[in-house]
Protein backbone atom coordinates (compact mmCIF):
# COMPACT_ATOMS: atom_id res chain seq x y z
CA UNK A 1 0.00 0.00 0.00
CA UNK A 2 1.29 3.43 -0.92
CA UNK A 3 2.31 5.28 2.20
CA UNK A 4 0.22 8.22 3.25
CA UNK A 5 1.97 11.00 5.12
CA UNK A 6 -0.09 12.39 7.99
CA UNK A 7 0.55 15.96 9.01
CA UNK A 8 -0.95 18.60 11.23
CA UNK A 9 -1.55 21.98 9.69
CA UNK A 10 -2.18 25.43 11.16
CA UNK A 11 -5.57 27.03 10.63
CA UNK A 12 -4.36 29.58 8.04
CA UNK A 13 -2.66 26.85 6.04
CA UNK A 14 -5.74 24.64 6.22
CA UNK A 15 -7.82 27.44 4.73
CA UNK A 16 -5.26 27.94 2.01
CA UNK A 17 -5.31 24.26 1.11
CA UNK A 18 -9.11 24.20 1.13
CA UNK A 19 -9.23 27.27 -1.10
CA UNK A 20 -6.91 25.58 -3.60
CA UNK A 21 -9.83 23.17 -4.15
CA UNK A 22 -12.50 25.90 -4.14
CA UNK A 23 -13.74 25.13 -0.66
CA UNK A 24 -13.99 28.01 1.75
CA UNK A 25 -14.34 28.58 5.47
CA UNK A 26 -17.00 30.81 7.01
CA UNK A 27 -16.66 33.22 9.91
CA UNK A 28 -17.46 30.47 12.44
CA UNK A 29 -14.81 28.17 11.04
CA UNK A 30 -17.12 25.79 9.13
CA UNK A 31 -15.91 24.37 5.83
CA UNK A 32 -18.06 25.41 2.88
CA UNK A 33 -18.36 23.45 -0.33
CA UNK A 34 -17.87 24.94 -3.77
CA UNK A 35 -21.59 25.76 -3.72
CA UNK A 36 -21.30 27.50 -0.34
CA UNK A 37 -22.92 24.78 1.79
CA UNK A 38 -21.62 23.53 5.12
CA UNK A 39 -20.43 19.92 5.09
CA UNK A 40 -22.46 17.53 7.23
CA UNK A 41 -20.65 14.99 9.37
CA UNK A 42 -21.34 11.40 8.24
CA UNK A 43 -21.29 10.28 11.87
CA UNK A 44 -23.60 12.89 13.24
CA UNK A 45 -26.07 14.51 10.84
CA UNK A 46 -26.61 17.36 13.31
CA UNK A 47 -22.96 18.31 13.15
CA UNK A 48 -21.17 20.31 10.48
CA UNK A 49 -17.47 20.02 9.90
CA UNK A 50 -15.18 22.78 11.11
CA UNK A 51 -11.87 23.34 9.33
CA UNK A 52 -9.95 23.08 12.58
CA UNK A 53 -11.30 19.60 13.38
CA UNK A 54 -11.48 18.24 9.84
CA UNK A 55 -9.29 15.67 8.20
CA UNK A 56 -8.25 16.73 4.70
CA UNK A 57 -7.50 13.58 2.77
CA UNK A 58 -6.56 12.74 -0.82
CA UNK A 59 -9.07 12.21 -3.47
CA UNK A 60 -8.43 14.95 -4.69
CA UNK A 61 -9.16 16.84 -1.50
CA UNK A 62 -11.85 15.19 0.56
CA UNK A 63 -13.06 16.79 3.76
CA UNK A 64 -14.04 14.31 6.47
CA UNK A 65 -14.62 14.42 10.18
CA UNK A 66 -11.37 14.38 12.09
CA UNK A 67 -12.70 12.11 14.86
CA UNK A 68 -10.82 8.86 15.56
CA UNK A 69 -13.78 6.82 14.37
CA UNK A 70 -14.12 8.69 11.07
CA UNK A 71 -10.37 8.44 10.51
CA UNK A 72 -10.46 4.72 11.35
CA UNK A 73 -13.16 4.29 8.74
CA UNK A 74 -11.08 6.18 6.21
CA UNK A 75 -8.03 4.01 6.95
CA UNK A 76 -10.05 0.82 6.75
CA UNK A 77 -11.80 1.63 3.47
CA UNK A 78 -8.51 2.80 1.98
CA UNK A 79 -6.92 -0.53 2.91
CA UNK A 80 -9.90 -2.44 1.50
CA UNK A 81 -9.70 -0.53 -1.79
CA UNK A 82 -5.97 -1.14 -2.04
CA UNK A 83 -6.45 -4.85 -1.34
CA UNK A 84 -9.21 -5.07 -3.94
CA UNK A 85 -7.04 -3.48 -6.61
CA UNK A 86 -4.03 -5.79 -5.89
Amino acid at each position, binding site marked *: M*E*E*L*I*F*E*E*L*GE*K*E*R*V*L*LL*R*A*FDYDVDGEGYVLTQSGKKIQSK*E*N*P*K*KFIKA*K*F*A*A*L*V*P*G*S*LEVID*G*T*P*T*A*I*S*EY*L*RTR*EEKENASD
Partner: protein
Amino acid sequence: MLPIDKIIEIISNLPLKDALTYLGAQGITNYLTQGYERIKKVIADKQNEGKYAFVPNKEEVLFLEEATKNPDYRQILILVPKYKYIDLIRTGLLLREYNRRIDSNIDAEKNKTHIARIKLDILKRPGGGRLLKIVKLPQSQFFSTILSYLYELKIHSYPENQIEEEFNELVDEWEQCVLYVDEKHQLEEVIDFCRRMVKENKPRFFLLALYEHHITVVEEAVKNIKQEQLLEKNNYLVNIEKESSKTATPRIEVRFYKNPELL
Protein backbone atom coordinates in the same frame (compact mmCIF):
# COMPACT_ATOMS: atom_id res chain seq x y z
CA MET B 1 6.47 40.53 -1.66
CA LEU B 2 8.44 38.31 -4.01
CA PRO B 3 7.42 38.04 -7.66
CA ILE B 4 4.95 35.25 -8.37
CA ASP B 5 7.51 33.32 -10.46
CA LYS B 6 9.91 33.30 -7.53
CA ILE B 7 7.18 32.15 -5.10
CA ILE B 8 6.25 29.34 -7.48
CA GLU B 9 9.87 28.31 -7.86
CA ILE B 10 10.25 28.14 -4.08
CA ILE B 11 7.04 26.27 -3.27
CA SER B 12 7.50 23.84 -6.16
CA ASN B 13 10.52 22.43 -4.36
CA LEU B 14 8.86 22.16 -0.96
CA PRO B 15 6.68 19.42 0.51
CA LEU B 16 3.02 20.47 0.61
CA LYS B 17 2.94 21.38 4.30
CA ASP B 18 6.05 23.54 3.99
CA ALA B 19 4.72 25.15 0.81
CA LEU B 20 1.50 26.12 2.61
CA THR B 21 3.44 27.43 5.60
CA TYR B 22 5.64 29.46 3.27
CA LEU B 23 2.61 30.98 1.55
CA GLY B 24 1.07 31.79 4.93
CA ALA B 25 4.28 33.51 6.00
CA GLN B 26 4.13 35.55 2.80
CA GLY B 27 0.69 36.80 3.88
CA ILE B 28 -1.13 34.90 1.15
CA THR B 29 -4.61 33.92 2.39
CA ASN B 30 -6.40 33.22 -0.92
CA TYR B 31 -5.79 32.98 -4.64
CA LEU B 32 -7.94 35.91 -5.74
CA THR B 33 -5.06 38.19 -6.71
CA GLN B 34 -4.27 38.17 -10.41
CA GLY B 35 -1.66 35.54 -11.20
CA TYR B 36 -2.23 33.61 -7.95
CA GLU B 37 -4.16 30.94 -9.83
CA ARG B 38 -0.71 29.60 -10.75
CA ILE B 39 0.15 29.28 -7.06
CA LYS B 40 -3.20 27.61 -6.48
CA LYS B 41 -2.40 25.08 -9.21
CA VAL B 42 0.95 24.18 -7.63
CA ILE B 43 -0.77 23.54 -4.29
CA ALA B 44 -3.58 21.52 -5.90
CA ASP B 45 -1.07 19.48 -7.93
CA LYS B 46 0.90 18.63 -4.82
CA GLN B 47 -2.25 17.51 -2.99
CA ASN B 48 -3.34 15.52 -6.04
CA GLU B 49 -0.19 13.42 -5.75
CA GLY B 50 -2.20 11.67 -3.01
CA LYS B 51 0.69 11.57 -0.58
CA TYR B 52 -0.62 13.79 2.20
CA ALA B 53 -3.48 13.76 4.67
CA PHE B 54 -3.90 16.60 7.14
CA VAL B 55 -5.41 15.67 10.46
CA PRO B 56 -6.19 17.44 13.74
CA ASN B 57 -3.96 15.14 15.80
CA LYS B 58 -1.14 13.33 14.04
CA GLU B 59 -0.08 11.19 17.00
CA GLU B 60 -3.63 9.89 17.37
CA VAL B 61 -3.87 8.98 13.69
CA LEU B 62 -0.53 7.19 13.76
CA PHE B 63 -1.80 5.11 16.69
CA LEU B 64 -5.01 4.30 14.78
CA GLU B 65 -2.98 3.33 11.72
CA GLU B 66 -0.79 1.05 13.82
CA ALA B 67 -3.89 -0.41 15.50
CA THR B 68 -4.66 -2.15 12.18
CA LYS B 69 -2.03 -4.65 13.26
CA ASN B 70 -3.45 -5.08 16.78
CA PRO B 71 -4.27 -8.81 17.20
CA ASP B 72 -7.64 -8.04 18.85
CA TYR B 73 -8.62 -5.76 15.98
CA ARG B 74 -7.48 -8.33 13.40
CA GLN B 75 -9.56 -10.95 15.18
CA ILE B 76 -12.63 -8.71 15.11
CA LEU B 77 -12.13 -8.24 11.36
CA ILE B 78 -12.12 -12.03 10.95
CA LEU B 79 -15.06 -12.70 13.29
CA VAL B 80 -17.43 -9.89 12.32
CA PRO B 81 -16.04 -8.35 9.13
CA LYS B 82 -19.30 -6.63 8.23
CA TYR B 83 -19.95 -5.21 11.67
CA LYS B 84 -21.43 -1.76 11.20
CA TYR B 85 -19.49 -0.18 14.04
CA ILE B 86 -16.16 -1.87 13.46
CA ASP B 87 -14.38 1.49 13.43
CA LEU B 88 -15.53 2.15 16.99
CA ILE B 89 -13.47 -0.86 18.06
CA ARG B 90 -10.35 0.89 16.86
CA THR B 91 -11.44 4.02 18.73
CA GLY B 92 -11.84 1.81 21.80
CA LEU B 93 -8.25 0.64 21.40
CA LEU B 94 -7.18 4.29 21.30
CA LEU B 95 -9.06 4.99 24.52
CA ARG B 96 -7.47 1.90 26.05
CA GLU B 97 -4.07 3.36 25.18
CA TYR B 98 -4.98 6.73 26.74
CA ASN B 99 -6.12 4.93 29.89
CA ARG B 100 -2.88 2.96 29.96
CA ARG B 101 -0.94 6.21 29.83
CA ILE B 102 -3.05 7.68 32.65
CA ASP B 103 -2.40 4.57 34.77
CA SER B 104 1.33 4.95 34.06
CA ASN B 105 1.22 8.64 35.02
CA ILE B 106 2.11 9.75 31.51
CA ASP B 107 0.54 13.14 30.74
CA ALA B 108 -2.48 12.15 32.80
CA GLU B 109 -4.38 15.43 32.40
CA LYS B 110 -3.77 15.63 28.66
CA ASN B 111 -4.90 12.04 28.16
CA LYS B 112 -8.00 12.55 30.29
CA THR B 113 -8.89 15.51 28.08
CA HIS B 114 -8.46 13.34 24.98
CA ILE B 115 -10.75 10.67 26.44
CA ALA B 116 -13.40 13.24 27.41
CA ARG B 117 -13.33 14.81 23.93
CA ILE B 118 -13.67 11.48 22.13
CA LYS B 119 -16.45 10.20 24.41
CA LEU B 120 -18.40 13.44 24.16
CA ASP B 121 -18.19 13.36 20.38
CA ILE B 122 -19.53 9.79 20.35
CA LEU B 123 -22.24 10.56 22.91
CA LYS B 124 -23.59 13.35 20.70
CA ARG B 125 -24.10 10.93 17.80
CA PRO B 126 -27.52 9.33 17.31
CA GLY B 127 -27.68 6.31 19.64
CA GLY B 128 -24.57 7.67 21.35
CA GLY B 129 -25.20 5.80 24.62
CA ARG B 130 -24.97 2.42 22.92
CA LEU B 131 -22.04 3.50 20.76
CA LEU B 132 -20.18 4.30 23.96
CA LYS B 133 -20.80 0.74 25.13
CA ILE B 134 -19.14 -0.56 21.96
CA VAL B 135 -16.16 1.72 22.51
CA LYS B 136 -15.93 0.56 26.11
CA LEU B 137 -15.65 -3.11 25.19
CA PRO B 138 -12.05 -3.14 23.88
CA GLN B 139 -11.03 -1.31 27.06
CA SER B 140 -12.31 -4.14 29.21
CA GLN B 141 -10.04 -6.91 30.41
CA PHE B 142 -12.76 -9.29 29.21
CA PHE B 143 -12.35 -8.27 25.60
CA SER B 144 -9.97 -11.11 24.81
CA THR B 145 -12.28 -13.55 26.64
CA ILE B 146 -15.19 -12.41 24.48
CA LEU B 147 -13.09 -12.74 21.33
CA SER B 148 -12.02 -16.26 22.31
CA TYR B 149 -15.66 -17.16 22.89
CA LEU B 150 -16.71 -15.84 19.48
CA TYR B 151 -13.81 -17.70 17.94
CA GLU B 152 -15.11 -20.92 19.47
CA LEU B 153 -18.47 -20.25 17.88
CA LYS B 154 -16.73 -19.79 14.56
CA ILE B 155 -14.96 -23.12 15.03
CA HIS B 156 -18.39 -24.64 15.69
CA SER B 157 -19.38 -23.34 12.22
CA TYR B 158 -21.60 -20.58 13.51
CA PRO B 159 -22.59 -18.42 10.51
CA GLU B 160 -21.16 -14.92 10.41
CA ASN B 161 -24.50 -13.19 11.04
CA GLN B 162 -25.06 -15.21 14.21
CA ILE B 163 -21.59 -14.42 15.48
CA GLU B 164 -22.39 -10.77 14.85
CA GLU B 165 -25.66 -11.17 16.74
CA GLU B 166 -23.77 -12.68 19.66
CA PHE B 167 -21.28 -9.85 19.56
CA ASN B 168 -24.13 -7.32 19.61
CA GLU B 169 -25.71 -9.06 22.60
CA LEU B 170 -22.39 -9.11 24.39
CA VAL B 171 -21.94 -5.37 23.83
CA ASP B 172 -25.12 -4.89 25.86
CA GLU B 173 -24.74 -7.71 28.35
CA TRP B 174 -21.11 -8.50 28.99
CA GLU B 175 -21.05 -6.69 32.30
CA GLN B 176 -23.83 -8.92 33.63
CA CYS B 177 -22.32 -12.21 32.50
CA VAL B 178 -18.72 -11.90 33.58
CA LEU B 179 -17.11 -12.24 36.97
CA TYR B 180 -13.62 -11.02 37.64
CA VAL B 181 -12.58 -13.05 40.65
CA ASP B 182 -10.30 -11.17 43.02
CA GLU B 183 -9.68 -10.81 46.75
CA LYS B 184 -13.29 -9.70 47.29
CA HIS B 185 -14.66 -13.08 46.26
CA GLN B 186 -15.03 -16.20 48.35
CA LEU B 187 -15.38 -19.59 46.69
CA GLU B 188 -19.09 -19.78 47.52
CA GLU B 189 -19.77 -16.43 45.80
CA VAL B 190 -18.15 -17.65 42.60
CA ILE B 191 -20.20 -20.85 42.69
CA ASP B 192 -23.35 -18.80 43.35
CA PHE B 193 -22.61 -16.59 40.37
CA CYS B 194 -22.34 -19.66 38.12
CA ARG B 195 -25.54 -21.15 39.55
CA ARG B 196 -27.39 -17.88 38.98
CA MET B 197 -26.18 -17.65 35.37
CA VAL B 198 -27.35 -21.22 34.70
CA LYS B 199 -30.69 -20.57 36.45
CA GLU B 200 -31.20 -17.48 34.29
CA ASN B 201 -30.41 -19.65 31.29
CA LYS B 202 -27.72 -17.25 30.07
CA PRO B 203 -26.41 -18.36 26.67
CA ARG B 204 -22.89 -17.73 27.96
CA PHE B 205 -20.99 -16.51 30.99
CA PHE B 206 -17.37 -16.07 31.94
CA LEU B 207 -14.94 -16.17 34.84
CA LEU B 208 -11.59 -14.48 34.87
CA ALA B 209 -8.86 -14.42 37.50
CA LEU B 210 -5.27 -13.31 37.78
CA TYR B 211 -2.64 -14.66 40.21
CA GLU B 212 -2.38 -18.11 41.73
CA HIS B 213 -4.64 -17.65 44.73
CA HIS B 214 -7.62 -16.39 42.70
CA ILE B 215 -6.97 -18.96 39.98
CA THR B 216 -7.30 -21.67 42.62
CA VAL B 217 -10.67 -20.25 43.70
CA VAL B 218 -11.91 -20.33 40.09
CA GLU B 219 -10.67 -23.90 39.57
CA GLU B 220 -12.38 -25.01 42.77
CA ALA B 221 -15.62 -23.32 41.70
CA VAL B 222 -15.56 -25.04 38.31
CA LYS B 223 -14.85 -28.38 39.99
CA ASN B 224 -17.82 -27.87 42.32
CA ILE B 225 -20.37 -27.01 39.67
CA LYS B 226 -19.13 -29.86 37.51
CA GLN B 227 -19.72 -32.20 40.44
CA GLU B 228 -23.25 -30.86 40.76
CA GLN B 229 -23.68 -31.76 37.06
CA LEU B 230 -25.23 -28.36 36.68
CA LEU B 231 -23.51 -27.72 33.37
CA GLU B 232 -24.18 -31.12 31.87
CA LYS B 233 -27.89 -30.99 32.77
CA ASN B 234 -28.26 -27.56 31.23
CA ASN B 235 -26.24 -28.23 28.08
CA TYR B 236 -23.34 -25.97 28.84
CA LEU B 237 -19.86 -26.50 27.47
CA VAL B 238 -16.84 -25.28 29.40
CA ASN B 239 -13.60 -24.03 28.02
CA ILE B 240 -10.73 -23.26 30.34
CA GLU B 241 -7.63 -21.38 29.36
CA LYS B 242 -4.85 -21.06 31.85
CA GLU B 243 -1.62 -19.19 31.44
CA SER B 244 1.13 -19.79 33.91
CA SER B 245 4.22 -18.74 32.04
CA LYS B 246 7.01 -17.21 34.09
CA THR B 247 7.04 -14.04 32.03
CA ALA B 248 3.33 -13.15 32.09
CA THR B 249 0.90 -12.69 34.96
CA PRO B 250 -0.73 -16.08 35.75
CA ARG B 251 -4.27 -15.99 34.49
CA ILE B 252 -7.28 -18.20 34.08
CA GLU B 253 -10.23 -17.64 31.83
CA VAL B 254 -13.28 -19.88 31.91
CA ARG B 255 -15.94 -19.67 29.23
CA PHE B 256 -19.28 -21.38 29.77
CA TYR B 257 -21.66 -21.50 26.86
CA LYS B 258 -24.66 -23.41 25.63
CA ASN B 259 -23.66 -26.24 23.37
CA PRO B 260 -24.22 -24.74 19.88
CA GLU B 261 -25.04 -28.16 18.47
CA LEU B 262 -28.05 -28.45 20.76
CA LEU B 263 -29.43 -24.97 20.05
